[in-house]
């Protein structure tokens, strides 16, 4: 049985883009309306975890940038290799939060009681890596600070959530085992005792030479970007967790062929022998327009249906 869900920020519809450009007075309502539509689309396409499309977030860091003490908004900076930019958090003092950032920036009221709810956050190291550190001694110290903030934030919403997905594009780029181990300790402190399923999503990079350094992280699910990590070049290694395969290209409008995806999943299953397999996009869908996002989510459902009879 293959499961599926989406990741991160959705694109905005053309009408919502227009509304944001004209500063429509009903903007808040328009965001909500479009969120409801996208959540319904996830449900209709049998996503196993349902998430807020986060279309009102200006970037993946902004709620934190704007609401954490010790941070100022900095310059626009390129978000990895994308032609999309984010406001860089500038760390000017010890960082702390009220613990209500996620509570106030995710529309929990839009989820039905039947839905299993997933939330997306960047992992502590990625938050640190994307910041300009003018205060802490090292990036690891700053990541530790972000870890404490995330723990406080997640503790306050854990009763409303079934899966916490840490999207970790900066972590996925690290090659040094020692550094990865330091970050593992921070992640352990961040998630210890939360009693919610967790996913570490190593999106955005080829981690083919590095997978073994991540598989002992204390999370339930490991996400691998199989658009950048070529499965036919990988060595077999057992992963005793659920493997979330970032096999849907969230950065190209070309539609996946379900049969080809199923064949790749079979190969991945053989290589890693995971507890179970999920399919997810390899990045946030915000890099392709909404109509293509919807089509890709429909294809994810088709892949799930096709995968039903396969013994994984």
């Amino acid at each position, binding site marked *: 049985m293959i499961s599926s869900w989406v990741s991160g920020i959705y*694109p905005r519809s053309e009408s919502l*883009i227009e509304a944001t450009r004209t500063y429509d007075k009903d903007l808040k309502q328009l965001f909500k309306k479009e969120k409801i539509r996208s959540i319904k689309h996830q449900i209709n396409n049998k996503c196993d975890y349902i998430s807020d499309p986060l279309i009102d977030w200006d970037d993946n860091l902004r709620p934190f940038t704007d609401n954490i003490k010790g941070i100022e908004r900095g310059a626009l900076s390129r978000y990895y290799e994308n032609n999309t930019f984010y406001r860089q958090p500038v760390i000017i003092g010890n960082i702390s939060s009220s613990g209500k950032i996620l509570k106030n920036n995710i529309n929990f009221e839009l989820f039905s009681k039947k839905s299993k709810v997933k939330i997306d956050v960047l992992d502590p190291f990625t938050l640190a890596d994307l910041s300009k550190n003018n205060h802490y001694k090292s990036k690891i110290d700053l990541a530790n600070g972000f870890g404490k903030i995330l723990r406080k934030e997640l503790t306050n919403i854990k009763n409303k959530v079934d899966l916490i997905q840490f999207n970790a594009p900066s972590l996925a780029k690290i090659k040094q085992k020692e550094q990865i181990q330091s970050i593992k300790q921070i992640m352990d402190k961040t998630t210890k005792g939360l009693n919610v399923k967790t996913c570490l999503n190593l999106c955005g990079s080829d981690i083919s030479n590095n997978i073994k350094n991540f598989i002992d992280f204390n999370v339930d699910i490991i996400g691998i970007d199989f658009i950048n990590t070529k499965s036919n070049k990988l060595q077999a290694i057992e992963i005793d967790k659920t493997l979330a395969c970032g096999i849907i290209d969230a950065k190209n*409008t*070309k539609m996946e062929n379900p049969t080809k995806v199923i064949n790749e999943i079979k190969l991945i299953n053989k290589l890693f022998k995971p507890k179970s397999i999920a399919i997810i996009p390899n990045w946030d869908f*915000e890099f*392709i*327009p909404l109509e293509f996002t919807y089509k890709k989510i429909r294809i994810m459902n088709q892949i799930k249906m096709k995968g039903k009879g396969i013994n994984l």
Partner: protein
Amino acid sequence: MKKLPLATQEIGSMRKPRWLVNLLKNKNISSEMKQKARDDVSLLNLKMFENLGLDVVYDGEAKRVEMYEYTIHRIEGITLAGRIRSWDNKYYNKGRCIKKLKYKGPYHLDEFLFVKENTNNLIKLPITGAYTLADWSYNEYYKSKEDFVMDISKNIIRPLIKDLVKEGADFIQIDEPAATTHPEEMNLVVESFNESIKGINAKYGIHICYSGNYSDMYPQVLEMKNHQYELEFANRDSWKKGMQHSNRKGYASFMKTFKEYGEKKEIGLGVLDVHVDDIEPPELVRDRILYAAKMADDPNLIHVNPDCGLRTRTREISFSKLKSMVTGTKMAKKKLEL
């Protein structure tokens, strides 16, 4: 082309006046009138640059919507997919390549001929490069990014440059803002640049901005057949005056690498941050130039420009920034006795 040490130049786009934007949106205005209005703004920009004292000019891209979208509309095989966020509520249209691309004709020729007819200054014609066009598009047709990039280089950009040079263009700036976003693809950037200009005699610049560390371009970029790098630096620099490395941290890393490799290509030195309204004092511009000239061991290699197109600033701010750039350059020239 004659040598002009510390020549001042513009990089690309200027913000369009509000009246032009409104006029272009008005469905009751004829296309002839709209064309006339675009010509007027083109001329306005050109004369503004001349009056400010810029040595090398163009028209502030008055006739283009935007560097990417304008171009893809004029290539067969790319269709618009929709808008993608650039930042916050700012979006750009992104194209899908759905079949083999085809050159439909010299899409910058009319604007170039207009500029040529209306100025006696040196002209630098900006065009969007193959690598960036591919990197910013969805590839649904070509087997690989390499195939996509190289087809644009050979079959779109090269014929375009050939047509423009035939009509008198002798200095072409190839805009490649995506060039350093994937450092591992630098060989492809270089190969694509060289294929784009192959066999066509002109002066060539490459403009890169807002991505990565320019030092990562080395050593591959030594093989690139460009004559000038037009780079964004001011955005990375401090506003402190002086020529100490610590005050010029936005320039230091690249200039050190440039020197280490014994480069003799020109640098179009970005001295104006186009993302802030603050006006750089002429003394700061002067010190940035003097620092780069010293590091390059040759002031003849330094040309002076904003980091990027000034379209993100109001026309008033852009005017003041460029004025300061020209004044600061004069101060540097005086100091260097040029």
